[in-house]
């Protein structure tokens, strides 16, 4: 039996190439057109991969032809974009993919759900047999362990999610936080929605155009505040999101100082995503005020990415350990296919490492 993975990803192919192969095949069509014993088709926006088990060696070109969307297309033109992993390399690759190490944004968790979905589809159609079952079950375990035992998924990596993440680091539960959105731009709306999804219930919107403020307030389940009254809200609110088109700073130390006196020990988190900035940078020097502009949010996102990259070595160590253990358990005949298949055929042997 040969276990292998053939595919292309954002590492090897651009989106134009990837879209030539995404959605052109199904697990069933791969099984039908090749002589694989088992197959699983994983397709996401960043990768198109086939994991399969077969008695004979199946060429990369054969799989590429199955995947091609255009029947008359020449798969040879795309050959350099394809990679092929066999046996232990295939196991390692799948563990890396499921753990998010091979993703464009290292540590992202979406791939885990996509892999699970692909496996579920293959299982339901009967395309995934005992070998792929064991392999993917182990991959899911490894991915969970990597997430639990390393910081690979720590920290937000997009501007909107960084703002929400920081809010949680300051206030803990966001359900009791009062938020004011100043300026009804697209980014502030996205950030406001992200905060609502994390439990914020008291949301106020203020905009130069009262109509737009009402519109956004209605859309996000908040309430509109007249633009000439927004400053007075600063003594009550916990989070301020600003993104107006003002040419001069709307909030300065002098304006904020009297309002801070009424706040006592409650911090104020200001997210200034306007360019030019709505809030004077010196506001960040005030006690209990945490000001983040678009650059500092980006910088935090980059730090999170750097932190994740720093964790790759620790994650790789866990994966290497599991690859060895997985191959060892197979070679020792543990987790025999007979434990998974209801009626194993007589003389069915466990998968040997050499066979992989």
């Amino acid at each position, binding site marked *: 039996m040969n276990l292998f993975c053939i595919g292309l990803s954002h590492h090897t192919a651009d989106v134009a190439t990837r879209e030539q192969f995404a959605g052109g095949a199904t697990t069933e069509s791969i099984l039908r057109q090749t002589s694989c014993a088992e197959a699983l088709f994983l397709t996401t926006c960043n990768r198109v991969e086939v994991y399969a088990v077969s008695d004979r060696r199946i060429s990369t070109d054969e799989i590429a032809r199955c995947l091609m969307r255009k029947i008359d297309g020449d798969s040879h033109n795309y050959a350099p974009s394809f990679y092929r992993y066999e046996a232990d390399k295939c196991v390692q690759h799948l563990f890396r993919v499921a753990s998010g190490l091979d993703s464009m944004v290292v540590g992202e968790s979406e791939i885990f759900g996509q892999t699970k979905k692909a496996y579920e589809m293959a299982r339901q159609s009967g395309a995934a047999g005992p070998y792929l079952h064991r392999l993917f079950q182990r991959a899911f375990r490894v991915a969970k362990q990597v997430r639990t*035992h*390393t*910081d690979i998924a*720590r*920290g937000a990596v997009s501007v909107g999610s960084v703002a929400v993440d*920081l809010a*949680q*680091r*300051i*206030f*803990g539960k966001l359900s009791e936080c009062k938020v004011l959105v100043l300026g009804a731009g697209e980014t502030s709306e996205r950030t406001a929605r992200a905060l609502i999804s994390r439990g914020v219930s008291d949301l106020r919107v203020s905009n130069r155009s009262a109509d737009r403020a009402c519109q956004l307030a209605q859309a996000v389940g908040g309430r509109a505040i007249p633009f000439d009254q927004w400053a007075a809200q600063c003594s009550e609110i916990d989070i301020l999101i600003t993104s107006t088109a003002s040419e001069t700073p709307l909030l300065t130390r002098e304006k904020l100082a009297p309002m*801070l*006196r*009424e706040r*006592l*020990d*409650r*911090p104020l988190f200001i997210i200034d995503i306007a360019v030019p900035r709505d809030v004077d940078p010196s506001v*960040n020097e005030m*006690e*209990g005020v*945490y000001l*983040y502009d678009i650059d*500092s949010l980006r*910088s*935090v996102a980059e*730090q*999170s990415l750097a*932190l994740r990259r*720093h*964790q790759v070595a*620790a994650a790789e160590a866990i994966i290497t350990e599991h690859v060895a253990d997985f191959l060892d358990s197979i070679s020792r005949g543990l987790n025999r296919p007979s434990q998974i298949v209801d009626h194993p055929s007589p003389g069915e042997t466990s998968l040997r490492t050499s066979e992989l």
Partner: protein
Amino acid sequence: MDRYLLIVSTICFLAAVVHTAVELRVGVFRPMRFNFFAVGLGFIFQTAFLSLRGHALGRCPLTNLFEVFVFLAWSVSLMYMLVGPLYRLSLMGAFTAPLVVLLQSFALIAPIDVRHSVNVPANPWVEFHASISTVAYGAFALACIAGVMYLVQERQLKTHQLHSIFYHLPPLTDLFATITRLLWWGLGLYTLGIVSGFFTGHPLPRVQVVAAIGVWLLYATILQGRHLPWLAPKWVAALCIVGFSVALALLWGITFTAEMRPPP
């Protein structure tokens, strides 16, 4: 024999410190269970030490500076065991362990384990007064540790430089709430300790009374000061550190002067 128990206990706390240092060095900060178990094990050995010493003395082991330091370290661990899981502050173990290592190492190394011949029988009021006051110091020590954690978190948020530890520290508002609770606990226990001191039946040395009231006033001021608009939470956290340093120095002074006095 009892000193060996204390050495083992110190090693347990040291393991938590080393574990944290190694993880910080490689950039993977995962306090999780290790610190809690290391501190827990250290606490068991501390308790065993104090129990043995107490039986040998026939009274609460607070008869010299050495025992006071160990009892204080035990109180810090006790408070952590109570507060840590309750407020999901597993990381506090990483900050608690170095303080306990310092206290116990000093107690073990410095020649302060001087046995005094105590001729008077154990007075339950004196024992209660001394032990409850030391446990209150444990709460103040933990407030000091929470203060350090607050300042670390605050600094990272202000400078926009977030390190691995940032994602493991509790939110700022939670930390401040913990500081406040610990200060209330400490002040309550300390008040109990001071009041019980007046029931001992012995005249209390003036210097001890003044120092005790000074510490009480200091913490009462910090607790009330947090309602003042100009005293930001950051300064309350900093005052917890200053307050504990002052209180510790006074505790040393009080115990030292008590040891200098001729036994009753």
